[in-house]
């Protein structure tokens, strides 16, 4: 039976499924460093209480989680493990990168021989939450943005089609690409910052 693209049945199912997915984002307990403490603070501490959004069921096993909150620096040795964790999660899965280390390497950007400069080099990211570490409120804003994205974004007819990642604390129109372009331009423009050697797996240069 052929169902039309925008039939009433499918859109209603879409709405229901997206509503349920948005409101029950079970995070995977995955924290590597300081951001993990703020994530714990947000997800569990009595004052902030992520349970209000239905996201307090922190699953230790990636098989049961929907949301991978990457909290803390990812180094080369951990990168493969992060990717594996992501692959172990069942679809639909969402990734939130919290903190400047996961976004771009943060304070460990220069002169570090291990830090991965942005986890978007390893796995696709849905929401970036800046901060070092981000406050719990920042994490909530990221979660709400993700909820909005899920509610608007996906459809049963086209699973896996996703909006572009957004920076949670920036205007919603801003995408990662814009920011990367800006950073690249800044690096070229500012003459006092010279980098010796360009890492082969930095992709932003090619994009810019």
């Amino acid at each position, binding site marked *: 039976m052929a169902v039309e693209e925008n039939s009433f049945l499918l859109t209603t199912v879409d709405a229901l499924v997206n509503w349920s997915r948005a409101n029950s984002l079970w995070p995977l307990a995955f924290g590597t460093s300081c951001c993990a403490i703020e994530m714990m603070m947000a997800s569990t501490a009595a004052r902030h209480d992520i349970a209000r959004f239905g996201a307090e069921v922190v699953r230790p096993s990636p098989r049961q989680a929907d949301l991978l909150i990457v909290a803390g620096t990812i180094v*080369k*040795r951990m990168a493969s493990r992060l990717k594996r964790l992501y692959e172990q999660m069942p679809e639909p899965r969402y990734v939130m990168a919290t903190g400047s280390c996961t976004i771009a390497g943060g304070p460990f*950007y*220069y*002169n*570090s*021989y*291990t830090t991965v*400069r942005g986890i978007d080099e390893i796995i696709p990211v849905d929401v970036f939450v800046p901060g070092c570490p981000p406050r719990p409120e920042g994490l909530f804003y990221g979660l709400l943005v993700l909820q909005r994205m899920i509610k608007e974004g996906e459809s049963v007819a086209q699973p896996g089609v996703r909006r572009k990642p957004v920076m949670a604390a920036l205007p919603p129109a801003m995408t990662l690409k814009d920011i990367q372009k800006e950073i690249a331009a800044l690096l070229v423009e500012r003459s*006092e*910052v*010279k*980098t*010796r*050697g*360009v*890492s*082969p*797996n930095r992709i932003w240069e090619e994009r810019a």
Partner: protein
Amino acid sequence: MSEREATIFSLIQSCCSEVILNEGSGSFSIQVPSEKLVFVMEHLKKSESLAFVMLLDHLAVDWKEMGEFELVYQLYSFKLDQRIEVTTKIPRAIPNAHSVSRIWPIAEWQEREVYDLFGIYYINHPDLRRLFLEDDWKGFPLRKDYEDPFMLELVKE
């Protein structure tokens, strides 16, 4: 140097006359020739009047210009309530040192860390592997001449 430190130093010198005071340190520090290191260390721990039973820390410093590695051991004695810094220098071309892991078990891992980051080979070490980096890592990153395109070195002018 305080009076107590002077007595400790004389005690050490009585066992090994080649020990000299290390002037390049802000705290009480002695310098030992590398071949005498294990002997002096054993004396520092086992001697009843000294009893430096705790190895707080072990690190290496890369003196590229002088072609030397400086190994630094921080010891602590409960009996004297005193910290002492023991340093030794080994040539950069042949970075071999004697392991003190028989004296203090924790040295096994501290030496692994130094091996990992500086590439100093410890003789008689039970299990000399990399500690922080992957086993197939090339080079020793904390050496001054380490180069890695991944590192994005910030050049200051």
